[in-house]
C-alpha cells in the first residue's frame, strides 16, 4: 500500500521553503509533487513600481546567493532597452565579479551537500575556507553578499592593480579547496559512495523538463549561455563548458567541481587582459518596446524580460530563475529513488536545507501519521 510522505515546507532550510509530497511504496518513491510559493514576495509587481535604477537593488534580492548575476542580467537587458554600450573594461570586470560569485555559490553547494550527507568534517572545511571569497567581496565591493556592484551602464567599483593582486592571491588559496573537493568525488571519495547512481536524470528527461545549468550539463548536455549566447567579455575569454554524462548527483557534483577551475581560469585571464578605460557610462532613456536578456547564473540559465513604455519605470518585468526550471527535474529525479536519498536529490539542485532529518508519513488508508528519520 503506497504511503504519502510530506517534506517541508518549514524546516530549518537554507533556501526557500518548499513542500514536497511523495508517494512511497516501501522505501521507494513512486511519485512526487511539489508546492511552491512560500517565498513569494510579489517581486515582479514591485518591479513596476520603481525606477530602472532602483530596481537594481530589488533584482539583487531575488536570491541572496547569486545576487550579483541577477543585477547583471537585469542591467544588460535594460542597457539594450536604452541602447547603452558598456565600456570594455566594465565587461571584463563583470566577468571577474560574476565568476567569483560562481565560485562561492558552487562551494556553498558543496557545503550543503556535505551537510546533507552528514559529512561534518567536509562541511566545516568547505564552509570555512569559502569565507575567503566573502571577505574578498567585502573588500572589493563593500559587502559580503548583495554587493551592489552592477549598475545600468557598467559597474560601480573598479579593480585596481592592488586589488587584482589580492584576487590572484585568493585564487591561489582556493585551488587546494577545489582539489580537496575533487578528491571527495574520486573513486574512493566519501561523496562518491553516497551520490553515485543517486537521483539519475537521463539526458532526454533533462531536456524534456527543461533543466538548466549544472543540472543539465550533468546529464550530458553541453549548454552554457556564456558560450551559446555570450555576454560581457565571455566571447574573448577561453574556458571549457564542463559536461558529465551520468546524470546522477555525482555527475552534477563533478560538473560543479570542475567548473570552479574554469571560473578561476576566466578570472585570471580577465585580470591579465583588463582593458583600460571607464568602468561605466551614463544610462540613457529607455525606448518603447521590449527586450529579453539571459545569462548563465551559477545554477543555470537566468532570463529577464522587460517591457518599457518609454517612462523611467518599467511596465512589465518577468524573471525566469534557473531553480524554477530545475525544480521540475527534482520531481523526475525523485521518482524511483529510495526515500532515504530524497534529501540529497532535492539538495543536488539547489542549496536548500528544504527538509531535515525527519518527515511526516501519512498512511493513505488509515490517515495515521508517523515520523520517520530520513537518514
Amino acid at each position, binding site marked *: 500500500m503506497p504511503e504519502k510522505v510530506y517534506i517541508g*515546507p518549514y524546516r530549518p532550510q*537554507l533556501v526557500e521553503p518548499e513542500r514536497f509530497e511523495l508517494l512511497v511504496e516501501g522505501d521507494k518513491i513512486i511519485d512526487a509533487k511539489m508546492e511552491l510559493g512560500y517565498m513569494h514576495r510579489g517581486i515582479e509587481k514591485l518591479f513596476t513600481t520603481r525606477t530602472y535604477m532602483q530596481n537594481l537593488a530589488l533584482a539583487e534580492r531575488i536570491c*541572496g546567493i547569486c545576487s550579483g548575476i541577477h543585477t547583471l542580467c537585469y542591467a544588460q537587458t535594460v542597457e539594450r532597452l536604452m541602447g547603452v554600450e558598456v565600456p570594455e573594461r566594465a565587461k571584463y570586470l563583470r566577468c571577474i565579479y560574476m565568476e567569483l560569485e560562481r565560485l562561492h555559490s558552487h562551494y556553498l553547494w558543496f557545503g550543503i551537500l556535505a551537510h546533507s550527507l552528514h559529512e561534518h568534517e567536509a562541511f566545516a572545511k568547505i564552509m570555512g575556507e569559502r569565507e575567503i571569497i566573502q571577505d574578498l567581496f567585502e573588500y572589493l565591493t563593500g559587502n559580503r553578499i548583495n554587493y551592489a556592484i552592477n549598475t545600468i551602464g557598467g559597474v560601480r567599483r573598479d579593480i585596481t592593480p592592488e586589488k587584482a593582486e589580492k584576487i590572484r592571491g585568493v585564487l591561489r588559496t582556493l585551488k587546494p579547496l577545489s582539489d580537496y573537493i575533487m578528491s571527495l568525488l574520486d573513486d574512493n571519495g566519501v561523496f562518491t559512495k553516497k551520490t553515485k547512481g543517486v537521483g539519475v536524470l537521463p539526458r532526454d528527461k533533462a531536456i524534456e523538463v527543461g533543466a538548466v545549468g549544472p543540472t543539465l550539463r550533468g546529464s550530458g548536455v553541453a549548454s552554457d549561455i556564456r558560450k551559446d549566447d555570450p555576454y560581457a567579455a565571455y566571447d574573448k575569454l577561453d574556458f571549457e563548458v564542463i559536461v558529465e554524462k551520468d546524470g546522477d548527483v555525482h555527475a552534477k557534483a563533478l560538473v560543479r567541481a570542475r567548473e570552479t577551475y574554469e571560473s578561476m581560469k576566466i578570472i585570471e585571464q580577465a585580470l591579465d587582459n583588463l582593458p583600460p578605460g571607464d568602468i561605466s557610462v551614463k544610462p540613457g532613456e529607455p525606448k518603447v518596446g521590449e527586450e529579453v536578456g539571459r545569462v548563465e547564473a551559477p545554477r543555470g540559465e537566468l532570463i529577464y524580460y522587460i517591457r518599457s513604455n518609454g517612462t523611467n519605470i518599467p511596465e512589465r518585468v518577468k524573471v525566469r530563475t534557473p531553480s524554477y526550471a530545475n525544480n521540475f527535474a527534482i520531481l523526475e529525479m525523485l521518482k524511483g529513488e529510495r526515500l532515504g536519498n530524497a534529501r540529497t536529490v532535492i539538495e543536488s539542485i539547489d542549496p536548500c536545507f528544504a527538509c531535515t532529518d525527519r518527515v511526516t508519513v501519512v498512511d493513505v488508508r488509515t490517515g495515521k501519521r508517523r515520523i520517520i528519520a530520513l537518514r
Partner: protein
Amino acid sequence: MAKISVYRFLSAGCNACDVEILECLVPRYGLANLGVEVVEEPEKANVLILTGAGTIKGEKALLEVYEKINPPKIVVAVGNCSITKNIFDKGYPIIGPPNKLIPVNYYIPGCPPRPQAIIKAIADILGVKIEEKEEFWKTPEGFRGRHEIDGEKCIGCGACAQICTADAIEVIDGPEKRIIRVNYGHCTFCAFCQDECPTQAIRLTGVYHLLTSDPRAARVENEVNLLSCTICGGTFFPEKQIEWALKRVVEEKVPIYKDYHDNIYNSMRICPNCRRKIENIKRAKILLTNLSERARRP
C-alpha cells in the same frame, strides 16, 4: 553558561541573512563557543531567529512555530526584511514585519548583517563578551555600513531620498526645519544615496553593530533650516540648498552673472506661490532681461 538553542524561521527575504546566520557556525565566528546551538525543531529551541518580511502563506506556520519555542522564548529579527519589510515593503503577499504577528525582542539591522554583527549581537543579548582581536571586527575601506550625514555639508535637497532603492529616506518638512531621516532598518545599504548626494554629505560608514530593541531607533537624521519667503513669510525651501544652487550658478556655471548675485538671491527667496503673482512676475522679468543682456555683452 546557559545553553541557547536556536530555531531559524525564514519567510520571504532574499536568503542572504539566513546564509550569514549559517556562516556564524563556522569556527571562525564561533557561534558554538557562545553556548549556542542551532536546532532543527522548534520544540527543542528556546530562541527563535527570524529572517524575511513574512508572507501570507507562511503566517500560520510562524504562529505555530512561535507557540512551540520554549521559555525564555526570545525572538530575534535578523536583517532589515524582518525589521521593516525592507525593499519588499509593498509586496502584495507580504503581511509583516514579523513583529506585527508575534512579539519580537531584538533586532539586528543589516542587509544582510555581517556574521560579526550577528555574533556580537547574540553575545550582547546573552551578556557575554567575545574575546577577539581588532582584526576580527575590522571592516575594509569602502564598507557599506550605517550612514553618517555631515550636518555642515547636507543642503537638505532630498536627492538621496529620491534615488533610494528602498524608500529608506524620509524628507519631513516642519514649519521651520526640514528633517532628512535615514531609516537604516529599511535600507538595502546600496549606497546609491552616497553616489547621488551633490555635496558628498551622506556616507556609508564602517559602523555595523546595530543591535536594538526598538526598530524605530534605527535611524540617522539631519536637520536643515527652511527659508522663509521674503514676501509672505511662509517657509518653502532649505536655505542651504538655495545658497548652494546660487553658488553653483555664479561660480561654476555662468560666472558672468556674478554682478547680479544679490538680485538673483533675492528672487530665489520668493516662494513659488508669490512668484506667480502679477506684481512679482514683473520683477522677475526685469531680472531676466538684465541677465540676458549681460550674457550678450562680451
